[in-house]
């Protein structure tokens, strides 16, 4: 058993749901107890889909156990087919049904339904959501795709975008345009928007674009082997990666391709003098492996940040992230426990976090600016506006997204500097939700230092908790920009503890500053 309050990934059948919901003409019959339908609202609310996910839950209850759960499953299958007339069905078990061992695949096979029925074996107690999506797409492709004559024009398939994917909708649009500029058509995009019939046509493409390794790699590997289709290894997020992606395609199809950079603004924005203050900003990057790897390259090579740490929550990408961390001279964090991530962030005290919905909250708590780069995300990261991560426009979007909280952070800092000014006062809230409220509600437990009106919410470790801050040092500490204040406080306390001091005055503060100067 493992105590968990928050998880980065759902169970594997949610991954299967993401594939089924992304597609059309496919129906998923899920052997599951009452209540597992909660997953529907991830799609109808977070992604704001205007239709129910194409899934039927058998909804067995306690009184059915040991009696007719198998019958229940067959009835649900038949009813789903009769009502929705899908081109193909997938069947599987949720974590509870896995325990009652009804074998949905075997049962569905005996029913002789007039469409392909694909059984999913998703081990709920070992694997998670991304594996579920990857495995489901792989099983669908394996069952439906077959070798066939290549299209007359050069075409490719887009593989990996799903429902509930971070910016998948707009990444597809961006890549389709980018490929079209190169004279390459899209044969099938799957699973997003594809029908089972479309999957039978996958073989007509000349190669595959693997958009998201987390959810498309197994299918691409299979197609490489069985359909002789090479697939792209570079994920085109960022300027350099997009250029490499174009080169990779040129090599695959054996002719030069042109990348239209006329709308690319990131390089100039990043070179302009306004961006000078971004130089050397320490960022911590966490999320799924693919988005972390691409973000690290953008951060270092295209924004001029210093990558202070990277990590991912999906163990499928652990090896790649570890290798990358070596490259960047940092230690990789492979964990799906947000408390580990929080601890690492506190320890590194970065000036910015690039992460998921959870890191956004950690950033909020610690007063560190944060931008979201990866799922899991919340409803605000399924925006109405066009906002891809991939390709040319993706690079522009990323520049804006990452700089925005920093500009806001500076604004916040200026307001804090002038806090004693007659027009600014403690009760005025923050200018931006990326910071933190200056007047903390009374019901939130306060760290020790809150007694002196300190904004820094960094925890105090027991070894240094005995050190007393004198009023002058406390005042001086408040003049330090809030996004490095936590680090300054801890450094000073550690320094004082090493020197055997139990009070910190102005002198000690500046000695510590000199001691830790980078």
């Amino acid at each position: 058993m493992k105590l968990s309050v928050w998880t980065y990934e759902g169970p594997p059948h949610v991954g299967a749901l993401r594939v089924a919901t992304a597609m059309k003409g496919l129906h998923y019959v899920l052997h599951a107890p009452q209540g597992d339908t909660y997953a529907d609202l991830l799609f109808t609310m977070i992604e704001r889909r205007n239709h129910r996910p194409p899934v039927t839950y058998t909804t067995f209850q306690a009184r059915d156990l040991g009696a007719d759960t198998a019958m229940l499953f067959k009835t649900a299958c038949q009813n789903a087919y009769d009502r929705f007339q899908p081109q193909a069905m997938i069947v599987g078990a949720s974590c509870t049904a896995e325990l009652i061992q009804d074998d949905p695949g075997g049962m569905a096979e005996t029913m002789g339904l007039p469409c392909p029925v694909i059984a999913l074996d998703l081990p709920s107690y070992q694997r998670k959501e991304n594996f579920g999506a990857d495995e489901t797409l792989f099983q669908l492709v394996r069952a439906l795709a077959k070798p066939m004559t290549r299209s007359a024009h050069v075409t490719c398939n887009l593989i990996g975008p799903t429902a509930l994917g971070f910016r998948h909708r707009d990444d597809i649009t961006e890549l389709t345009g980018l490929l079209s500029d190169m004279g390459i058509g899209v044969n099938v995009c799957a699973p997003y928007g594809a029908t089972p019939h479309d999957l039978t046509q996958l073989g007509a493409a000349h190669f595959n674009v693997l958009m998201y390794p987390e959810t498309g790699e197994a299918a691409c590997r299979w197609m490489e082997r069985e359909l002789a289709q090479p697939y792209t290894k570079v994920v085109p997020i960022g300027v350099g990666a997009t250029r490499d992606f174009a080169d990779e395609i040129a090599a695959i199809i054996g002719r030069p391709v042109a990348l239209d950079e006329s709308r690319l603004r990131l390089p100039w924005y990043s070179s302009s003098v306004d961006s000078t203050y971004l130089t050397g900003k320490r960022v911590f990057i966490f999320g799924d492996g693919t988005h972390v790897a691409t973000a690290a390259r953008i951060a270092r090579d295209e924004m001029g940040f210093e990558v202070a740490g990277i990590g991912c929550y999906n163990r499928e990408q652990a090896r790649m992230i570890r290798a990358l961390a070596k490259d960047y001279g940092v230690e990789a964090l492979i964990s799906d426990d947000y408390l580990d991530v929080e601890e690492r962030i506190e320890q590194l005290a970065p000036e910015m976090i690039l992460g998921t919905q959870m890191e956004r909250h950690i950033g909020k708590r610690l007063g560190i600016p944060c931008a979201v780069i990866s799922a899991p995300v919340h409803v605000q990261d399924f925006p109405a506006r066009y906002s891809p991560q991939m390709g040319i426009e993706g690079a522009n979007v990323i520049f804006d997204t990452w700089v925005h909280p920093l500009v806001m952070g500076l604004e916040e800092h200026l307001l804090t500097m002038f806090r004693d000014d007659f027009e600014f006062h403690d009760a005025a809230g923050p200018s931006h939700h990326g910071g933190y409220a200056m007047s903390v509600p009374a019901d939130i437990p306060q760290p020790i230092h809150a007694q002196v009106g300190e904004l820094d919410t960094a925890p105090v470790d027991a070894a240094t908790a005995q050190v007393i801050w004198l009023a002058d040092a406390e005042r001086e500490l408040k003049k330090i920009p809030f996004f490095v204040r936590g680090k300054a406080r801890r450094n000073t306390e550690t320094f004082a503890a090493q020197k055997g001091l139990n009070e910190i005055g102005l002198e000690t503060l500046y000695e510590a500053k000199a001691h830790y100067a980078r």
Partner: protein
Amino acid sequence: MTLPLAPLAGGCRDVPVLKQRGQHEVFCGLTGIIWLHRKIQDAFFLVVGSRTCAHLLQSAAGVMIFAQPRFGTAILEETDLAGLADAQAELEREVDRLLSRRGDIRQLFLVGSCPSEVIKLDLARAAERLSAKHAPKVRVLNYSGSGIETTFTEGEDACLAAMVPALPQTDRRQLLLVGALPDVVEDQALDLLMNLGIEDIAVLPARHADSGLALGSNTVFALTQPFLGGTHAALERRGARHIPAPFPFGEEGTTAWLQAVAREFGVDQARFDAVTTAPRARAKKAVAQAAARLTGKSIFFFPDSQLEIPLARFLTRECGMTAIEVGAPYIHRAIVGLDLDLLGHGPTISEGQDVDLQLDRCRAAQPDLTVCGLGLANPLEAEGLPTKWAIELVFTPVHFYEQAGDLAGLFSRPLHRRAALRLEAAE
């Protein structure tokens, strides 16, 4: 003391109920934890379940998860499924770690889930053992919030019912209010009852473990929520007596509820009127303002929380709506019987669900407003059917006089918005 509301001629108590089996589009009882942990301030809810359970809780808890929540999931792993003997040891280890980290916890609920029930993990015994180990500081209790046994709000019922047997004995003549209400609503209810001259009042669930809550054969209890069938039975087993009443939604419902309690305690009419006249007038006025948009409109309830029957009674009698179908996950006649009496003849009363067939009925009826869960709301809106999402009715203060206008407002707002938006060109 005037009699409370008389049953409507041809009320719905004896109407045949439509029962169908099939896919249920509902939450399981684990969801109750989301509001229970806010109400019981020194409790921690530890679900023993799978990653699905953890995922459900975080999906339902939204952003609450980030405020040092007092709930979590002990996620079962393969090794736990292999042999039961060490599942108890594993649980003990996780609980010890949890209690050593969180010194503020006085009550720990081990909450059963579908996976833990299916593998027959004996959480009751685990709770007993852990209680003995961590006494007197922490009491460990157990209930099941599994989907195979409970629907949405039944999780609260299971939790309260688990607390009842452990409560101390008292022969005091007291009134027990049963059901977790938002603090502001609970305070209003207590004020009203005290002004009526009822002195000795306790609330289940109490906000803290050491609240001194006790009960016995001189305890009478009034339910503030309709989904408390199991708690009702557990209280009767302890000798407490139930005061039947319609549920305190709207002016009429609140007055009838108060009257039932006042009669039990022999409050005279003059005093009752003195206490209730002003808030009744306020509530009537507030409801009338919000209900202007609801009069003459039809409403269709998908099953969700068991609040459907009392709410349909409020909307039809006080807001002038017509109910087409009132679906509830479960109908407990001893508890919602009086509300069924007051609900005018006409609507289909359904219990349980086959969601696809119910959607067919809903589309055929084309109601002006459909009350349903979040999995159905946007899809129905896209089909042109205005919806009110049901879950809000469980989280928002809606009971008693001062909230009557807000309650009507929850239903009128979607219709107001429909009328306000001019989006035809965009479609």
